[in-house]
């Protein structure tokens, strides 16, 4: 199943499911298919090689203002019939909610995005293996202190999806993605540190193995000799990769579902000054350079550019058809699904900050006492998006008198999401599209608590 025929086949399955709608009902199917290749190499050999197809259908039924859901991993006709029946039965147990209902085409045109590279289908497996091996060689040769590789992978996928509903939605899209990634170990004087490097693109020819190797080696070796810093309050400079993770969390607080259900700190604050005037945040899944770009959302409606924060002022939230309807507005094309096994939630898919004009080096030069944070850990355990508490493990390089000084590790950075937005001192010019739902950029935040010795 590939190419245009593939999309037609998925749409046909969606049509079949939507066609099973009974009187007084709405039925929707999300139909997904992907072909994935994963290669892991170790010490010049293939350690693991997987190549497989995955597929599935997720079916929503809305009946009498109640919603039910069921999914299956095959497209056999009898399985589709069974799954619709199961979703219909599940619907009978929901609490009636007058706002429940599937999305209807809303007249917003789908922006055509070129996310599929036909050529990926004809790249030989041997060539992919060679890329992974080349990355391993490049990393090992990048620095004499590189002592080992924890993992070195090449991964790609050709994926397609369709959403068809009895309310008139009928869209399909496809995309390709490939990346190489390495986690490496650097050792010196009995101490080991780690670092990662990656390169992502729509097909192998877009990957830069040398850059990925250099990044991994740099991140690992510059942590050698790192010590635990003392506790205090400092200005932090977030590396693009870290900023992207922070933006992803921020995006979650701007979801219409969080706002509707009283779980967002920004619920009544549209029009308020919620952050530094340097902060302009947009969610735009039609941005073709974003790796999480997609022409349509999880309900099959057109993706669109949604401005969220404008020079520190809160503009609005993102919605799917339910949250939009319930809040007296409309879907912003922001329904999100993690695969076919669940109903659509709401979320930001391609966030980015308006970049500034200074490079990371220039921003660091302006800081007397600070720390450049290279990576964070425990985002799921120390960050509470409802209360706003933000506390993560961190590692990076101390900044003293405008210059990078000693590497530091085994410390935490803490503040609150609310305070961090207000304490942004600068946004760098180094906007970078990363393989997550937010772009990265250097971000300087004042008055963050460092917990160490």
């Amino acid at each position: 199943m590939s190419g245009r025929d593939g999309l037609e086949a998925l749409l046909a399955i969606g049509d079949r499911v939507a066609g099973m709608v009974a009187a007084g009902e709405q039925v929707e199917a999300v139909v997904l298919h992907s072909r994935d290749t994963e290669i892991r190499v170790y010490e010049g050999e293939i350690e693991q090689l997987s190549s497989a197809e995955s597929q599935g259908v997720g079916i929503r039924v809305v009946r009498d203002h109640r919603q039910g859901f069921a999914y299956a991993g095959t497209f056999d006709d009898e399985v589709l019939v069974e799954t619709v029946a199961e979703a219909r039965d599940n619907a009978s147990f929901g609490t009636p909610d007058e706002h429940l209902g599937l999305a209807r085409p809303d007249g917003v045109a789908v922006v055509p995005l070129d996310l599929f590279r036909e050529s990926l289908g004809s790249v030989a497996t041997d060539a992919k293996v060679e890329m992974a091996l080349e990355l391993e060689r490049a990393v090992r040769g990048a620095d004499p202190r590189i002592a080992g590789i924890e993992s070195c992978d090449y991964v790609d996928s050709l994926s397609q999806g369709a959403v068809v509903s009895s309310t008139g939605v009928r869209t399909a899209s496809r995309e390709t993605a490939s990346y190489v990634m390495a986690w490496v170990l650097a050792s010196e004087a009995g101490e080991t540190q780690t670092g990662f490097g990656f390169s992502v693109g729509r097909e192998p020819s877009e990957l830069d193995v040398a850059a990925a190797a250099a990044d991994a080696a740099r991140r690992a070796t510059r942590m050698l000799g790192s010590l635990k810093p003392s506790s205090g309050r400092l200005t932090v400079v977030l590396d693009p990769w870290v900023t992207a993770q922070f933006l992803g969390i921020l995006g979650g607080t701007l979801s219409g579902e969080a706002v509707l259900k009283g779980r967002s700190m920004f619920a009544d604050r549209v029009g308020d000054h919620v952050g530094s005037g340097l902060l302009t945040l947009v969610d735009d899944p039609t941005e073709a350079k974003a790796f999480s770009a997609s022409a349509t959302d999880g309900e099959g409606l057109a993706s669109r550019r949604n401005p969220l924060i404008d020079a520190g002022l809160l503009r609005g939230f993102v919605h799917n058809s339910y949250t939009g309807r319930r809040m007296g507005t409309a879907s912003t094309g922001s329904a999100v699904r993690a695969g076919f096994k669940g109903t659509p939630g709401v979320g930001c898919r391609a966030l980015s900050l308006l970049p500034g004009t200074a490079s990371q080096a220039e921003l660091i030069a302006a800081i007397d006492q600070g720390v450049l944070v290279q990576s964070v850990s425990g985002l799921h355990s120390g960050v509470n998006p409802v209360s706003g508490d933000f506390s993560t493990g961190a590692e990076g390089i101390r900044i003293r008198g405008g210059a990078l000084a000693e590497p530091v590790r085994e410390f935490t950075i803490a503040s609150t999401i609310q305070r961090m937005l207000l304490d942004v001192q600068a946004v760098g010019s180094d906007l970078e599209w990363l393989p997550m739902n937010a772009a990265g950029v250097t971000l300087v935040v004042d008055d963050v608590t460092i917990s160490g010795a």
Partner: protein
Amino acid sequence: MLDEAVIQRVLGSALRSGGEFAEIFVEDKRSSSARLDDGKVEELSSGRDRGAGIRVVVGETTGFAHTADLTEAGLRAAAQAAGAAARGGRGGERTVQLARVVSPAPNGVTRQPGDVAKSAKVDLLMRANEAARSEGGAIKQVTVRCADSRRRILVANSDGLLAGDDQVKTLFAVSAVASGDTGMQTGYESVGHTVGWELFDRVDVEQHARRVARQALTKLEARPAPSGTMPVVIGSGGGGVLFHEACGHGLEADLVGKGASVFKGRRGELVASPLVTIVDDGTMAEEWGCYSIDDEGSPAQRNVLIEDGVLTDYMYDFLRSRKEGRARSGNGRRQSYQHLPMVRMTNTYLMAGADDPASIVAGTDRGVFVKALGGGQVNTATGDFVFGMTEAYLIENGEVTEPIREGNLIGNGPDVLTKIDAVGTDFAMGPPGTCGKDGQGVPVGDGVPTLRVTALTVGGTAA
């Protein structure tokens, strides 16, 4: 689930283009969940995941393919793809003789969740919702979820192993949002076991829900957590994620083998305080990480990892145990038939000690008491790990006093293990967890008695 003769032919086919070892893992999993949020039962959801994963090993190379097509033709196609991916070795016909292995099941199931009326599940959610909201007007939102699954697996390999398991899990979770002058706060508690619907004969859902609401209300009074290194007391049953991160992952033989663990080369050495004995036990009846066989067909085992402070052994999967010349330990697990197995934990815990729990706090002049832990993360190569505190208090002059806000604690595994100076008699398992590694999540349990670490860094904002 599959005809033995078919399995034998598929394994033979997998080895046709070469290979020393082939395995077929078949999985049929039925899941269902129900969620109540904002006062409404939002949806019931159910689904089935069914398929087979086939791997072929040639030397140090593993080829893998999976399929949802369980006909003989579909399986043979996957077998050939896996065989081709492993590329090499000597080809030819191989006959595989299977012998079924039966391992004791950790427990029985009295009420299959699949047989429980959906209305009963909904009723549970509504009772919990009402109970949580009855704790007061400051409770602004309540979410209740129940979920269950029945996972049947069959493993067969070219060494002749044939084994199966039938794993039923039931889970219940409540979260609440409270709002007050200091903003919003949350409470959360989950309970889950490898049992059927009989879980609810022993869980009082209203009491559970009220506890969650009170946790959120308590946290409205929480002050900023301290910042810096100090003594930390972990309450019993609060969650053994501390050990899961401090040493659990570091004792997985695949990470050790790649030089990515600070515990490499330390078998037989004192790596922790002599008060510390850490066990990983897949046979623990009904716990979230238990099973009869792992996902490679090895029987679950109780493995003592650290005994009285001395590192006894690592955890292995099939390939690692073979490579290192060690016995199987029953730790080869995978998220689903679509994934390759690797070394994973099961139920990981610190064994009870001899100290009176009350004396542990009483003997701490100043520090933090963590009653409930959240998740965590570790860099096994450096040993640095974090874990979250979702309900914690200050300790002042030997007493638990003010609640403090959420945050991460950070430490270095080998260092923290030597700084445990008190271990209580009051062991208890914690809530069900999902351990993530290399993109795969598996269910795990953990447990601790009350214990004290003399120095851990608390990541708060109050100097």
